[in-house]
């Protein structure tokens, strides 16, 4: 059993959990994720390692309630435990010194997984410019954390309630327009967002890394459910990724595949609502 040591609602429907998992914390690196199950009949769902504390032996998860499993997870309280927690999974982000200027883009909940990467980039001595995007000011998360490790932070909101009005790509364009020399972009967020970032950087020839979130089952390379088309190769996001060269990713198929279980997901959500979240 894995205990929830801290629970905090960052903004409506977005939660911060610190989970006790000392061995995972010891090995965790930026860019990796875990797979968890809330209870004995639960689904295996992947969540990014948003932070880790090797001394305290904890892993921080930031998740958004979207369906049955995340709803059940959100219904847990401090001191409660979840049954399964496996990781760290996936390849760590490639981070080293002298990479130059890195633009780290997080859209919505994607800010959480981009944070440890941005921090590691910063710690390696690179120049980090962060772009955070959200629908509106109230649901923006991690702003202080991101400011603490970035040389500069740009914010974009759909409704213009904070920062520039528009998308993360609007902010990216501002950087380009002012002549910022960008060596790499790392973008994490919804599929549509990552695709627009990739389309924006492609003509400029800026290397762009994206972290993909296909539906997963085991997270160890056993089921092939997380396969994505990267260039002319089929890759398993859980072992080969989750990060890939964005210019090679087939986003259409990725986004289409993430809708494969839509009707069932709706049914599962109704089910947990009806029978109660504690089960």
């Amino acid at each position: 059993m894995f205990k929830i040591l801290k629970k905090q609602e960052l903004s409506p429907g977005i939660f911060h959990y610190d989970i006790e998992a000392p061995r995972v914390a010891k090995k965790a690196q930026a860019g990796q994720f875990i797979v968890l199950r809330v209870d004995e009949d639960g689904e295996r769902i992947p969540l990014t390692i948003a932070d880790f504390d090797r001394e305290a032996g904890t892993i921080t998860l930031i998740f958004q309630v979207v369906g049955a499993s995340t709803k059940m997870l959100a219904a847990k309280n401090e001191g409660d435990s979840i049954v399964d927690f496996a990781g760290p999974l996936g390849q760590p982000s490639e981070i080293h010194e002298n990479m130059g200027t890195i633009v780290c883009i997080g859209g919505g909940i994607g800010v959480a997984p981009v944070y440890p990467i941005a921090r590691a980039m910063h710690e390696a001595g690179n120049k980090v410019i962060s772009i955070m995007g959200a629908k509106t000011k109230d649901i923006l998360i991690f702003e202080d954390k991101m400011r603490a490790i970035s040389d500069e932070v740009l914010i974009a909101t759909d409704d213009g309630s904070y920062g520039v009005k528009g998308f993360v790509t609007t902010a990216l364009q501002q950087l380009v327009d002012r002549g910022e020399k960008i060596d790499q972009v790392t973008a994490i967020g919804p599929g549509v967002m990552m695709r627009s970032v990739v389309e924006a950087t492609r003509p400029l020839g800026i290397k762009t890394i994206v972290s993909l979130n296909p539906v997963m089952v085991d997270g160890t390379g056993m089921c092939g459910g997380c396969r994505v088309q990267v260039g002319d190769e089929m890759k398993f996001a859980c072992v080969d990724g989750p990060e890939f060269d964005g210019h090679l990713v087939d986003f259409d198929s990725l986004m289409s595949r993430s809708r494969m279980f839509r009707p069932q997901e709706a049914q599962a959500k109704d089910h947990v609502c009806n029978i109660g979240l504690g089960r």
Partner: protein
Amino acid sequence: MALVMEKHKMPEQDPKVRARNFQEVALGYDEDTAVAEAERCLNCKVPKCRQGCPVQVNIPAFIGKIKERDFDAAIDIIKESNSLPAVCGRVCPQENQCEKHCIMGIKGEPVGIGRLERFVADYQLAKNEEIKPIQFAEDAQKVAVIGAGPSGLSCAGDLAKMGYKVTIFEALHVAGGVLSYGIPEFRLPKDKIVRREVENLQKLGVTIEVNAIAGRLFTVDELMGEMGFDAVYVGTGAGLPHFMHIPGENLNGVYSSNEFLTRCNLMKAYDFPNHLTPIAIGKNVAVVGGGNVAMDAARTSLRLGAENVYIVYRRSEAELPARAEEVHHAKEEGIQFKLLNNPVEILGDENGWVKGLKCIKMELGEPDASGRRRPVAIEGSEFELDVDTVIMAIGNGPNPIVASTTPGMETNKRGNIIADEETCATTKEGVFAGGDIVTGAATVILAMGAGKKAAAAIDAYLKSKK
């Protein structure tokens, strides 16, 4: 006494009924039938059957005990060489192994060795005997086993009985390997058999840690270093699904057999939404492949409610690698065999879902390296099969996570770990390996046998070091 030339029939659920439920198909012999079947055994001086069994179970001896109705003695004899008889009695390809060589098979049908093995194993499990925990010595040496499939489980059991403190590290949240995630409930009940075998091992004193992915949570070097293990057995199986790399494999409605079976068996999607993992099944399903895995996926599809289920296989019936019994069961249940056909493309609709499978007809040409006649495409014979779900069951390769994080442990060009056939020793001192990770996808009994061999070799190795 006149010889009975036919095997006693296995009581089974009616095909029409069972094709829609997940309960076990074969119901097992009762005592009288078991004894009557045992009577058919001639107790041969040179028992050919034994040579056919990969672990050389003493078949005539255990069958002799069944004749005497001494079922406890029978199971003890089997367990000398096979630690998972309730499993092997159910899933061994007996017609290619023990029963293939049975003398009774020359004129009539061979003795139902597998069925008898299952009978005594079930008899013992039903007795629910108390298992005495092993008293380990204070300074007992420690062995780590990676992977809780049949290979790892049998290695761990044998080592524990020799007095070693064993911890099994399993990546998934449940032990059992393919027995838990791959082979369906209706062939191998999970709670009744697999979980029981695992629990018995734990009662004996073997520690099982789930959610423990070797190569990620710790490396083999760390196991033998700071984690204090004296030897390691790697039994990580062949769990990496192959795809055909034809157009359309990323469409919605396409699964690997591993994903499909894992959702259904391990995650119990057949009981959705009580179990929260979903599975989407269409009306018409094509399963590509001809092995046990393909039969399992096809029969699972029927049980999930598909109307038409096709096996698409590029060779002919004679070359189907699946167990004869499973092919027979599949046909009885209404699986349609599209033999000598090879998929060339999966066709999609405007929403990204499968709407058909384009195949080409094949004919058998000259024998290839495996001795089987090679299928050759008949030019211009393409046709479309009207399906909305495609399951790829064309084989599995080795998962590279452990090998790629273990310097000094060599693999061959296919990625399988190189290990000595007799001792299972790898090229890295103190590290042994066996089962599907060494041989490529094979059988439960071979994986189990390798675990036993390795346990003996690890014992010898650790004694020599002391």
